[in-house]
């Protein structure tokens, strides 16, 4: 089981994500710089970290989505490799077209940095198999642009196809349908604003996020 973390100039959750992946896979995560044009064939899990890639210039995630590594990530995703984008990683995946919709400025215009309660909506995905459907979990959020928006048809499709992985238990940032995380059509790409990698060991105060990584490794290995 090999994992990789993509690193952009301005990423700042890349190390946390690598530590989380290393703890559950037992192997060092490969760190892939944004200029890389290829992802090694033996990588099973690609993680796109949070942060402020390219200083959030133009739009959050816009520049990173057009960087060379993201073409390789899109290729890998189309081959079925698991791709997990967290926070800025979610913004990058929507900008790159790997996930539908867009993440706009928070409705309250403030940067939101606190723990939030989420509901696990879909426990059948490769990312959420260790959770129960409807389970309440608490993950931290830390973002300025987490206000998920998509046209009605897309929202209906996400709802109908069970592609909303996580929902905020109460409004946080203005997101349509309180969406906190969504899955791709094929189910192998997850983008979410909250940070599971920040709650994986008792020293973090909570461990709700650990099962996301454990479940992912378990299902990908199967």
């Amino acid at each position, binding site marked *: 089981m090999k994992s990789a973390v993509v690193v952009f100039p301005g990423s700042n959750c890349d190390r946390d994500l690598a530590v989380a992946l290393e703890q559950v896979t037992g192997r060092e995560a490969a760190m892939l710089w944004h200029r890389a044009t290829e992802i090694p064939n033996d990588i099973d899990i690609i993680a796109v970290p949070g942060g402020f890639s390219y200083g959030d210039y*133009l*739009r959050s995630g*816009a520049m990173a989505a*057009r960087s060379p590594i993201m073409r390789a990530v899109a290729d890998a995703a189309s081959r079925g490799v698991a791709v997990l984008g967290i926070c800025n990683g979610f913004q990058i995946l*929507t*900008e790159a077209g790997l996930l*539908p*919709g*867009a993440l*706009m*400025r*928070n*409705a*309250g*215009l403030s940067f939101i940095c606190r723990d939030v309660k989420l509901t696990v909506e879909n426990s059948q995905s490769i990312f959420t198999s260790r959770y129960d459907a409807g389970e309440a979990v608490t993950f931290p959020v830390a973002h300025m642009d987490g*206000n998920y*928006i*998509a*046209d009605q048809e897309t929202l209906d499709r996400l709802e109908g196809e069970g592609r909303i992985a996580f929902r905020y238990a109460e409004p946080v940032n*203005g997101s349509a349908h309180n969406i906190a995380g969504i899955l791709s059509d094929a189910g192998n790409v997850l983008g979410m604003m909250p940070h599971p990698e920040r709650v994986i060991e008792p020293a973090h105060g909570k461990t709700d996020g650990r099962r996301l990584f454990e479940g992912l490794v378990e299902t990908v290995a199967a």
Partner: protein
Amino acid sequence: MKTRVYVTLKGGVLDPQGKAIHHALEGLGFAGVNDVRAGKLIELDLADDVSEADIDAMCRKLLANTVIENYRVERI
């Protein structure tokens, strides 16, 4: 050749920044402001042989996120 690209939020998309500017204008005592929408102006200095189609592709591929934004090109 100088070209301006105006990027604006689509009609149905809520604009929290525009709303905040609107409130601030009202706070300053300006009456009669019905609505405010905030957008971006991007100025490009282009070679003469860059086609309209190229500029359109630039807008679609990077300058605007067409999920939420419209764009308008003005060659000056």
